[in-house]
């Protein structure tokens, strides 16, 4: 009898071990309660929360979403209850889910807000890791922290001193060279980088001659941006050594595998959660099957295993 092989899906970021590499992306999964009717949340590798800011934010003026060819624009504007209410009301139920909880945070006005946010989260046991969202396009700023390698380095090195918890830096694709920014995050002590956040975009209602989104522009996500994301992951993979959490238009097992082959150690399902709330667990099952079918015993057998002309 042939012994049935069960692939090892576990993966490490810094000192942390994740039982599998399938996460759900910030802003696409609420605080998880909206998904408990659809999937067994315990199956997920990790849940990344909706981004939290220091003060409560009402979010941007509607309309906040707009469908585009194979994608969507959003400008939610980080609507959230603020860190104190989040810790008081949302973190406890999240902690009871028995899934690693990664809390996404952002600063509104000054990068110093990250210091306070990190210090508060550092004390919370339910927080498995912290994601520094320095790449949200919907705060209507002229420049994002992640659009400058020096700013990224300065921010990450400062908050690195404030916590032992795992730090993930989420990067914007709206840059000349994302791998340079990833390198800056690595050199500053980030345990991993997550890429890509949404691409800046805009849609116009030609009859009204107005933008289709309330705040005129937003971030593009969904399958439309996947080729851009794959290329950025591959470029970055060749330049850094810390793990990459790959995302951008992952909708099924095949698209998730593209990200692994391009160099992602973990992947994050985002917009697909809106279309199919079960996408994440279906991808996890598909990944397991792919590894069994191809006799791959662990994720190192696919991560970055892209064959190129030079090989």
């Amino acid at each position, binding site marked *: 009898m042939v012994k049935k092989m069960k692939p090892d899906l576990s993966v490490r970021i810094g000192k942390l071990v994740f039982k599998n590499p399938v996460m759900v992306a910030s802003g696409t999964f609420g605080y998880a309660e909206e998904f408990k009717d659809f999937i067994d949340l315990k199956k997920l590798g990790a849940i990344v929360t909706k981004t939290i800011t220091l003060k409560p934010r009402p979010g941007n003026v509607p309309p906040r979403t707009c469908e585009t060819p194979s994608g*969507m624009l*959003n400008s939610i504007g980080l609507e959230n209850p603020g860190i104190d209410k989040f810790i008081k009301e949302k973190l406890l139920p999240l902690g009871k889910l028995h899934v690693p909880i990664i809390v996404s945070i952002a600063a509104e006005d000054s990068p110093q807000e990250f210091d306070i946010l990190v210090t508060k989260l550092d004390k919370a046991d339910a927080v498995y890791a912290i994601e520094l969202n320095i790449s949200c396009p919907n705060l209507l700023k002229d420049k994002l922290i992640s659009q400058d390698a020096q700013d990224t380095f300065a921010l990450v090195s400062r908050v690195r001193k404030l916590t032992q918890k795992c730090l993930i830096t989420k990067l914007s694709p709206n840059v000349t060279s994302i791998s340079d920014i990833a390198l800056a995050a690595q050199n500053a002590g980030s345990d991993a980088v997550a890429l890509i956040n949404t691409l800046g975009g805009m849609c116009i209602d030609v009859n009204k001659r107005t933008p289709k989104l309330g705040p005129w522009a937003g971030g593009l996500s969904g399958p439309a941006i996947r080729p851009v994301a794959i290329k950025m992951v591959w470029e970055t993979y060749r330049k850094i050594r810390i793990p990459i959490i790959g995302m951008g238009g992952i909708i099924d097992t095949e698209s998730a595998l593209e990200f692994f082959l391009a160099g992602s150690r973990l992947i994050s399902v985002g917009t697909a959660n809106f279309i199919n709330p079960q996408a994440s667990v279906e991808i996890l099952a598909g990944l397991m099957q792919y590894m069994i079918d191809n006799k791959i015993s662990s994720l190192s057998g696919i991560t970055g295993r892209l064959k190129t002309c030079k090989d």
Partner: protein
Amino acid sequence: METTRLQARIISNKRLTGNYWNLEFSSSQIARYARPGQFVNIRVNQGTDPLLRRPISIHAVKGSKIKLIYEVVGKGTLALSERKPQETLDLIGPLGKGFNYQLPVKPQPGQNIFIAGGMGVAPLVYLAEKLNKPLVLIGARTKKQILCADEFRSLGCTLQLATDDGSLGFTGKVTDLLENILTSTIDYRLSTIYACGPHPMLRAVSLIALKHNINAQVSLEGHMACGTGACLGCVVETISGYKRVCKDGPVFSSRELIW
């Protein structure tokens, strides 16, 4: 589990009139849990364009059969109109907070006023089955766009119609009809208004209800991405901040909304 994602069999999908279509599918799960004012979120095809599901309100529940009425307005609803009987429909439902109503202890015809604009009739027929013989006001641009009049009649409802071009019933806005009724008779002072239709109509209904000190429940449309409350995309401004049309609504008390 009340809300689920499921594959339902299409029973029929036919043109009603003009761009309006009628789709029937089978789902005992949704039939069991659905309430008037709730909706289902449909993946119109398996591709990625259109990417997002289309939210459509539940029009009727008969046994395990669910009926929807939708208007073909873009590529999503066009793709839906191309779906054939016996095919399976990937849908999530029932979703949202429906109309808030109490079953009348003693039938009192006219206790409730329904007001619908165009497609807005769809969820109100379902509600009319639960409430006793409401007064129903339906408005549309023209006679051909007055939908479901016979369905309301067969439920014993009193009907008043309004068309912009005067091709049927009162010439003018259905909200003018509402204003006339409330001004001329005192019988409706204790009524509740249930409204569904285009946003400007709902805004007018809300103002009239406020003026006559009558409660109104309005069912809104929203640009939804997820339909389940996760994305915060379809929010509407209320007296207590932004609320989600998909999860906190689509039915709201008109006094709660900032128009």
